[in-house]
Each structure stands twice: as C-alpha cells, then as structure tokens.
C-alpha cells in the first residue's frame, strides 16, 4: 500500500498563476478559457478568496462516497490512489453528484450523451511514472505529489515547524481521509472548504444495507408465522362452524 499516491496543496505557496488549470485543460483537450468554478471542462480551478488562491479538485477520498454510491461501480478507488471513472459503465443516474461530500463531480448537462467529469489524478500518467499534469506545471511547488504517507509526513512537518500554518491538514480526517491534502495559513472555513463529516461516508449507508439480509430472514419468518396463524384461525373457525351446524 505504500505506493498509494497523494497530492499536497500548500495554499501559502500558491501565487494564483493558474498553471495547474491550464495544464489540466491541455492534457484533456479542453478549451483554454479560465473558469470560475469546477465544470465539465475545468477539473481543477483556482478560486480567489480574499488574497488567497484556493485550488479545487477531487479529493480522491480513501473510501469515496461517490464510489460507494455508484450502482454500477463506474467509480472506483484504485490501489494507486486515484478515484477513477469508467464511462462505459455509467448510466447517468447522478447519484455520485448527490453523494460527494465535497460537491466535486460534474455532469455534461448540455450533451445528448452525457457523462460525469471529474479529476482522476491523472491515473494514466501516474501509471507510466509521470506526475499529474497540474503538479508538473506548478512553478512554486504549491502542489506536490508523492507516496501518501510521505506526503502526510511532509504536511505534518510544515504545519508543526512553521507557526503561520493552521494546525490542521485538510483531508487527513475529512470524509475519513483523502488522497489530496491542503494546508493553509487561513482557517479553512474562511476559504470555502466544507466541514465534511469525519467518518468515511460509505459507513453511513453500510448499516442500512447490512440490515438487508437480516430483514429478509426475520421478516420472512415473521410474515410466514403470521400467515400460519391466519390459516390456523380460519381452520378453527371453519371447524367450529361445522360443529355448530352438526349440533
């Protein structure tokens, strides 16, 4: 598991040059205009919050809500870290959009054959040993990539050694942990980061689903029992009626 990759975004180092945006658009062949929000043609954007530049992208959760929600398994957490999307499976139900606690996936609303779009951490490039395009393009080292535990250690080292940092690594606990981390010198809630639940999201539905077999067994037994009683009562009533008739 030590080959699981992760990205660290250090907001204090971001100068808002948008090289990551451009690089991402280039590798995907998207139109190059700058966009304000994540979209089907902008899988990462720089949002300006006061004098800060905040990068948005898929968090590549360790146990992703989107993947647990997708009924056909089009979204998957890969061992290498990225959460990938298999367009050939998707039926377009958009439950992944509903489920994602960070509101990341986008849908091609204007297309007649619409698919879901989200950052895949450049899974293909990484499989060939290249860094994600956005990280490669970053001139200041605000975005870096590495093995997840090393990246976490690095983030930890920075927030401990430098007092300007908020003492929290965004992504270390959110949604049970992610593979994209943010560190900042301004409180995260001021930068538009959502206060996502601390547990892995799929846990929320696992219990309900786990109840399924129990419900079938217990419910089935209960209902059969009720049916048996009903039958018995009818028989007894019939026998009594016959008795009465005879006497």
């Amino acid at each position, binding site marked *: 598991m030590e080959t699981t990759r992760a990205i660290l975004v250090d907001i204090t180092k971001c100068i808002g040059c948008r090289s990551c945006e451009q690089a991402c658009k280039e590798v995907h062949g998207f139109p190059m205009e700058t966009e304000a929000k994540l979209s089907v043609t902008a899988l990462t954007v720089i949002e300006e919050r006061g004098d800060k530049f905040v990068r948005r992208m898929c968090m590549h959760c360790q146990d992703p809500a989107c993947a647990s929600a997708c009924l056909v398994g089009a979204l998957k957490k890969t061992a290498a870290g990225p959460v990938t999307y298999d367009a050939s499976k998707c039926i377009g139900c958009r439950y992944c959009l509903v489920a994602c606690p960070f509101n990341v996936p986008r849908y091609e609303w204007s297309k007649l054959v619409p698919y879901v779009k989200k950052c895949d951490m450049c899974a293909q490039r990484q499989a060939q040993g290249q860094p994600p395009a956005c990280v490669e393009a970053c001139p200041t080292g605000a975005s870096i990539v590495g093995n997840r535990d090393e990246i976490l250690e690095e983030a930890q080292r920075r927030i401990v050694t430098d007092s300007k940092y908020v003492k929290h690594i965004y992504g270390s606990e959110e949604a049970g942990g992610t593979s994209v981390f943010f560190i900042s010198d301004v409180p995260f809630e001021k930068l538009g980061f959502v206060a996502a639940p601390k547990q892995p999201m799929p846990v929320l539905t696992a219990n309900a689903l786990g109840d399924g077999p129990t*419900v079938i067994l217990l419910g089935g037994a209960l209902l059969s029992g009720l049916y048996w009683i009903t039958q018995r009562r009818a028989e007894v009533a019939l026998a009594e009626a016959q008795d009465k008739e005879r006497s």
Partner: protein
Amino acid sequence: MTTTRFPRITLWRIIVAVIFAAGLYATYARFALGFKLATNLTDPQPWGLWVGLGTLCGVGLSAGGFAIAAAVYLLGFERYRPVLRTAVLVSFLGYMSVIVGMMYELGLPWRIWHPIVMWNRHSVLFEVSWCVMLYTTVLALEFSPSLIEKIPWAGFREFYLHWHHKLLIALVLAGTLLSSMHQSFLGALYLITKGKLDPLWYSPYLTTEFYLSAIPAGLAVTIMALYLCVRSLNVRLDLSVLSDVSRVIAPLLALWGLFRAVDLITHDATPYLFMWREETLSFWVEIGLFVLVPVVLLSRDKVRNNPQYLYWTCALVVMGFMANRLNVSITGLQASSGVYYVPKWTEFAATLAVLTAAVMAFRYAVIYLDILPKNPPRQRWMVANTAAEA
C-alpha cells in the same frame, strides 16, 4: 349522474390532450435537446422533480398494493379483499410509471439494464434498482389473473389460475419483503448526504421514516382510486370498506409523527423547528398536511363515514406525503447546494403526462377487467372472478 357525465368527460378529454401535447414536447426536449434545455438541473442540484416526485413519490404512493395484499393474505383481514385488486393495480401502474419516468431521468437510459450485470453491493441505489425490478415483476404476477381470466382458451386459463393460486402466498410474501425493503432504501439513499441535507430531515433513521410514511400514503391513494371508481365508473362497491381502510391510516400517521418528533429531539434539531426560514416553513407544511390535519379529521366518524370527506382527507395525506419527499430531495438540500432550484415546465409536463397515462390505463383496466364488481353484475365474469379468488 348521466347528465353531468358527458360535459365532464369532454372537459377531461381536452385537459388530457393538453397534458399529452405538453408531455410530447417535453419528451422531445429531453431526448433531442438534452437536460440543459429540458430541465433546470445543475451540478449542485443534480436530482430534481423527476427523482423527487417521479421516483420517490411514485414508489411511495404505490405502497398500497403490498399493504393490502399483506393485510388480506398474511393477516387475514378478509374485509379488505374487495379492494385488493384495485390496490395491486394502482401499485403496478405506479411502478410502471416510475420505470417510464426513469427513462427521462437517467442520462443514458438505454443503459438501464446495466445494474443487472454490473454489481455494486455497497450502493443503496443498486439495491433500490433490484428491488424495483423484482417487485414490479411480483406485482405483474399478482395482477396477471385479471388479464388471464379474460383469455378464451379455457385449458390454459384454468392451468394458469390453478398454479397462480398455489404460488400466490409465496408471491405475496416476496412482495411484502421486497417493498418493505426498498421503501426504506429510498430513504437510505439520503443517508450519504450527511452534512448536506438539512437537520430537519437528515436522520440515521431515514429508512424507517420512509417506510412508515409510505404505508398510510399508499392506503390513501388506494382509497382515492376506489372513490373515483365508484363515482365516475360503472362500479358497485360497499363504501364502508373505505372507512375500514381509513381506520388504520390515522394511527400510522400519528406513529410516523411521533417517530419523527423523537428523532428530531434526540438529534438536537429542535432549534431548527422554530427558525424563520424557508426550510422550517416547508417542514411545518409537511407536518400539517401529513400528520396534524389528517389525524384530527380521520379521528372523526363524520369524516370516515362520508366518502367525499374521506376522499379529500386522503388527498391531504397524499399532498403531505409529497411535501415530505420533495423536502428531503429538494428543499432540504437547497441551502448546502447554494442554488435555488425551480423545476422547468417541461419537467412538470413529462411527469404529469406519465401520471396521466397511468390514470388512463387504470380507468380502462377497471372498465374492461374485473377489478371491482360491476353494476349490474355480469354473471359470466363473476364466476371467473370467484374461481380465481377461491
């Protein structure tokens, strides 16, 4: 009756024609122009009217079939038997319209079969899709004798009805379990929206809440359908059965209200109950329509024993139920999504057209099949009818 019937039907015909014309355009818009022009859906509000009304309400309001079937066959409530076929028919048509609605709602509807071969057991939606498939099959089988008994080949007919009768209990059992499960799973769909869904609706017990509310709502729809049959179609029914069915609705609604109250209090949602915001207002509309007013009305003999009052009370229950489902799927998610979603008219048009088609199918089924005893009774059908149910 006959004098008022003609103009009414003509008026209805115009309305139906308008609805279908609008529905036709909506269909064109959805499939030839795409979501962007046919709907007001956006990334922050990816599920709208088609899910909230079409799927959540459609399935929930179709709960009457399993509730009545279970009451008659498993609990031995024989006095509900005369309305059994109506309840099953309403449910069957309800599920069919949900499936047709799915074709609009899915981005890639021609892949609707994917969940059959591509499994993700961790997905609530996966379980929901299987339950819908299986339970629609069960409903079709439960309903099938109404069609089969019209088949002229006596041999096949007898053979089918004989086996159907043998397997009926298994069907009812499977149907009860399947629909219980997926009425609750529809609520479970929203368990993953923790942090997004408003505290007035988010609860780890969404499953139970969806289940408990579906049964009274489904029964209310059944009562409404029966009342309309008696009023406008050539049907004979002892109306006291309606009041019998309605007797269980009030306690079920009260139970749901109680469950919801305890749930809200234990999850510290009480402060939200009295805030001046749209969500809270919608919440009280829901509670008023679905619990407070109907419970009071249904506790009165005067309402229960007057079919017309009963009909309108049931209409309140249905509206309250819809308010609840739309609150969970739309209102409750609005604040976190940051967009104000109002469905486009084409969204309404598509849903309404599907619903109208279902109502018409229901009407024809009641006219041409033996769903309810006819007035005057026709001897041959009555015989087949009793044979099927014996």
